[in-house]
Structure formats: C-alpha cells, structure tokens
C-alpha cells in the first residue's frame, strides 16, 4: 500500500502539477477508502457462491455470509488505515474534531455494503456472468470517482459527475473527515438515501428468492 501510494503520488503530482504536499494526503486516503468500498462491492459477488459448501450443509441465516464479507473487509481496512497517522506526522496535518465523523461515514458505507452484499451476492449466484460485469463497472468507477484526482480540478459545469456518483459521496464521507474537513450535507443525504433505497429493493427481493438461493448454487 505504502509503495503504491508513494509511486503514484510522485508521478501524478508531477502530471497534475500539484505539489506533493497538497496531493499526497488526499491521494493516500482516497486509495485506502476506495480499497474498502471497491472490495466490499467485488466481494459481494462471491458472498454466496463462495459459501456453497456451508449453504448446502447447514441451515444458517443467510445474512451470516454477508456479515462475514463485511467483517473481513473492515479488518483489511483497519490494517490499511494505519498508514494515516504516518501521513499526519510526515505532512504535519492536525485533522481535529471532524475526524470523528469518519466513523459515521464508515457506518453509512458498511450499511450500504450490507444490502449490496445480499442483493449482488444473490444475483451473482443466479447469473454467473455478473461478477465480470461488476468487475468492469468497478474499473470504470475508479476513474470517474475522485480517487486519483480532486473534485476541485474539475471545471464547474462538470461537477455533477461527482455529485451524482454514489461512490464519490461515500468516499467523501470517510475521506474528508480524516483530512480535517466536514463532508457536505449533500453527501450525507446521498449516503442515507442510498441505504433506504437499497434496502427497500433488497428486502422484497430477499424475501421472494431466499428459499431459491440454495438451488442456484
């Protein structure tokens, strides 16, 4: 992680003509948080197909396998996030009280991860070409989400690109507080709206197809 960030930081700060001091902190946190969001979504594809053996042997609640995926990703995130204090030291950043808000952002992202895990997990068990589709979508999403670049580098008339991108909003809910900024109210509303919308689609779907899942494996 550290090697990637230093290498990318060097090249892109030169390309974008931004000083390393301005660029590296947001890049680092961008990559760390993106890794969490992206792997929650790609892992969602194998939540059930990867647990085929369990599903065919014991009647466990299906949500256990989603929890498993979330906990695994949160542990990886906790491991990656240890780079942040180092970043603060090197660049002399004092994030102050907004950093606490990162936990709220993390909670919102995790709740979204839950319905995505359940919904995408089930769909991927039924449609086996979906994981590849998700993987290519995530690749595109990486470039249109402000991970490598900053939203303020975008001309004003294109800012909707970031505003309408759910992943960009989730990203800013975790990254901005760690940089000492309070995320916008719009980002919070988007994050919460995503949870509500996601669950209102997932719950009926789950109720309808829960018993079919084991036959799809």
């Amino acid at each position: 992680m550290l090697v990637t960030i230093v290498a990318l930081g060097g090249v892109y700060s030169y390309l974008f003509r931004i000083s390393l001091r301005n660029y590296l902190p947001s890049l680092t946190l961008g990559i760390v948080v993106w890794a969490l969001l992206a792997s929650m979504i790609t892992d969602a594809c194998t939540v059930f197909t990867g647990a085929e053996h369990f599903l065919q042997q014991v009647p466990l609640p299906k949500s256990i396998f989603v929890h498993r995926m979330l906990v695994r990703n949160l542990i990886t995130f906790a491991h990656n996030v240890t780079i942040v204090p180092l970043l603060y030291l090197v660049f002399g950043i004092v994030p102050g009280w907004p950093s606490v808000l990162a936990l709220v952002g993390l909670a919102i992202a995790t709740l979204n991860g839950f319905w995505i895990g359940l919904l995408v997990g089930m769909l991927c068990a039924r449609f086996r070409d979906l994981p590849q589709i998700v993987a290519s979508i995530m690749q595109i999403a990486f470039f249109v989400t402000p991970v490598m670049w900053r939203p303020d580098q975008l001309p004003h008339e294109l800012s909707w690109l970031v505003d309408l991108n759910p992943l960009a909003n989730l990203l800013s809910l975790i990254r901005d507080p760690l940089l000492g900024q309070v995320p916008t109210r719009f980002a919070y509303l988007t994050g919460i709206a995503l949870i509500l919308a996601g669950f209102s689609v997932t719950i009926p779907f789950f109720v309808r197809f829960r018993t079919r899942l084991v036959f799809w494996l």
Partner: protein
Amino acid sequence: MATVSLDRVTIEFPVYNARGRSLTEELFRRTVGGMIHSNGRKGVSVVALRDVSLSVADGDRLGLIGHNGAGKSTLLRVLAGIYEPLSGRVRIKGTVATLTDITMGMNLDATGYENVVLRGVFLGLRVREARRMIPEIEEFTELGEFLRLPIRTYSTGMMLRLAFAVTTAVMPEILIMDELIGAGDAAFAVKATARLNQMISHSRILIMASHDVETIRRLCNRAALLQTGRIVTIGSVDEVIAAYLTGNADQSPPSSAADAITSAGP
C-alpha cells in the same frame, strides 16, 4: 417432545445451462422478445421429491432406503431445513443436528482447540458451551499435545477423530444422518461406535438414509422406501426391506429416471 411432519412436499431443481446462467443472455432475450433464442431455450428441471407426506413421532427411528437418485439425500436436506419446498409444508419441533459432513466448519489453520469451538458453534452451541466440551474431547480423542497445533499438521485419521468427537458431543433431539459415520483405526472404531450409539439413544428422533439394510435393521424401528422422489412403502423395517430387495430383483435399477425429469417454463 420432538416431532417432524411433511405435508405433500415437492422439491424441484432447476437445471441451468450456460445460457440460463447468463445475465446478458437473459436481458437480451427479454428485449429481443425471444425471437432469436426461442428454440432450445426452455429450462429443464428435475423433480427430486414429489408430494412426499411423512410424519415422524417422538421415539421413532426412521430409516430411508432407496436407489441412488431416489431422493434420500434431498429428503434429509429438507428435514435439515436446507431446502425449503416450493409447495407443501414442513413442520419440525425440536433441535436438529445433521451429520452429513462432520468436518464442516473446521479451519485448517486453526488449532485443534479452536476447531472444537468452531465446529461446536456450527452445531448450534454457544462459544461458552463449546469450550466446556474441551476436557471431554481431549480425553476421547487422545490427541494430547496435538490439540495445540493447527489441524493442517494432522493426519486424515486424526482430523476425523477430532471432527467425530465434537460432532458426537452435542445431543440434539432430532438426529439426521446420511450413512453411518465412523472414524479411525480398529481400536478407535470400537470407542467411536459406542459413542455414536450413545448419541443416537439420547436423541428423540433418528432419521437416517443408508444403502446398508443391516444398519437400518439394527438402528431403526420404522423404514420408508423411496423411488424416483416418492415414498412408495412406509412401515415396519422388515416389510420395507423386503419390498426393497424384491424390487431390486425384478427391476432394472434406474427404473423411471426419465419420469422425474420434466420440462419447465423458462
């Protein structure tokens, strides 16, 4: 009081080919209106159980007999709550333990002790309850210091001993078994059999599938004969075994397998 009852349960497996598994194919079909893929796109499904009704009372030891593909394992999985039927009702009162794969849930990188807890939790125990079994399992498995090592280092026999010991340490009201489980070399097998028998006698209901009529005769007081997803005979062990054996004699085994495969909608 433990009871199990099935009322006209039907289980059908969809069989998907590569096309049926593909989302792009599915979307394409929906939008194009089935004009292109209308031929040969019909899905096939296998009816594994058809209108099975069954009631098992407290104290029953039910043996399931039948050829391969008759639906024994499917029926066991319905009873275990893994398959939920499309039509029909399943009512089960009592705690259920399924002994199909006794190593399920064990982690190769975890130590023997950790695996006792892991496996115990999979069998429905709380962590504290699972820990409480440890001394007894230490004694039974005779694995000694090996329990401190990751089970990756165990031989197959040692691993089976451990899995067997934990699995048989829980005492469920309803016990479901696919063939008799056993473990280890001759000396250990004697101990294992005694332990398994103790577990069986502790349970209120035993439901087991087996190809071995002697096992059924020894352990069960009722039996059911399955054929292509239906229960054809149910009654006393001797009666059902007799029906099974005569059926063997005058029938070519995969009697009407084709009968079980029906064409279903897309």
